[in-house]
C-alpha cells in the first residue's frame, strides 16, 4: 500500500499535476483527486465552465494513480486509450475524481473514473480507459 505521503510526493514529481493544481486524498486504498478551482482551468469564460480536456486529464490522472495503488506499483501505467463522456458542464468550483480498477491483467488494466463537484450522485463526466501496466 502506498501511504498518503508517498502518493503525494509521487504526484508532486509530476509537473503537469502541479500545473493543474491537483491534490490527492487517500482513505484506505480509495483515492480521491481534488482539483481546486482556478481561473486558468476554464474552457468557456462566458458560463464560465471548466475545460473538458482538464476534466478528462483529471480522471486520467486519477485512473493511473489508483492503478498504482491497486497494483502496489510505484510506477505509473501508460495510457493506451481513454473515452470521456461529458455529462454536465463543469462549474467554477472544486472538482473531485475517483477511479475504479475493473480489471488488472498481466499487461493491460481496465479502469473507470468519474468526476463530480457538489454532489457525488451528479457526475460531470465519466471516463473509461485501458492502461499498459508498468513492469514492477
Amino acid at each position, binding site marked *: 500500500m502506498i501511504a498518503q505521503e508517498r502518493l503525494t510526493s509521487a504526484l508532486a*514529481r*509530476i*509537473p*503537469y499535476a*502541479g*500545473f*493543474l493544481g491537483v491534490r490527492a486524498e487517500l482513505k484506505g486504498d480509495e483515492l480521491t483527486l481534488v482539483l481546486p478551482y482556478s*481561473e*486558468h*482551468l*476554464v*474552457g*468557456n*469564460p*462566458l*458560463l*464560465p*465552465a471548466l*475545460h*473538458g*480536456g*482538464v476534466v*478528462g*486529464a*483529471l480522471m*486520467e*490522472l486519477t485512473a493511473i494513480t489508483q492503478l498504482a495503488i491497486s497494483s502496489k506499483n510505484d510506477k*505509473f501505467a*501508460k*495510457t*493506451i*486509450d*481513454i*473515452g*470521456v*463522456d*461529458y455529462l454536465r*458542464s463543469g*462549474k*467554477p*468550483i472544486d472538482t473531485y475524481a475517483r477511479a475504479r480498477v475493473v480489471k488488472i491483467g498481466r499487461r493491460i488494466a481496465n479502469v473507470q473514473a468519474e468526476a463530480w463537484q457538489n454532489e457525488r450522485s451528479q457526475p460531470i463526466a465519466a471516463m473509461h480507459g485501458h492502461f499498459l501496466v508498468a513492469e514492477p
Partner: protein
Amino acid sequence: MGSGDPPKGDYGKGGDALERVRAMMQWTPQGRALGLQVMKIEGAKVWGRAPYKAELIGDPETGVIAGGVITTFLDQLSGMAAVLAMRKPTTVATIDIRIDYMRGAEPGRDVLAEAHCYKIGKNVAFVRAVAYEDSPDNPIANAAAAFMLNTHVKMGANLREAKT
C-alpha cells in the same frame, strides 16, 4: 483525416477567418495557459500547435508531455473544427471524445495536430483529430469526438448554479 468536401461555415470565408479562429483559441483561459496556437484553417479543418513546456511534463523521468495536455489540445482543436463547419458559428460542447495514445510525444518538441469535422448535422458534429510532431503518418494520438451544437450559453449561468 477523412476525404470528401469539408462542410463550410462562415468562419471559412473571408481573409480574416484565421484571425477570428486565433482569437477563439485565445478566448479560452486553459488554451492560453497551455499556449495553444492555430496554424492554419481550410474549410472545416484546422491545424494547431501545442508548445513544449517543462511545466506540462507528465513523466519526469523521460520528460514526455502529459497525456492530459494532448487530451485538452485535441478536444479544443476538434471543437474549433466543429465551429468552422457551422454555417452560423455559435458555441459547441463536447459530448464525448475517445483518444488512442499510440506513443509518448518526443521530449522537448512541440506537438502539432489537425482536426477535421467530417460530418455536421442540425444538432451534432463529428470530428477526427490526430496529434504528431512531423507527420500524421507517425501519430502520437488519434481522437474521435462528437459535439453538441448551438449550446445556448447564458452568460454567467454556471456562476448562479454554483451558489446553490
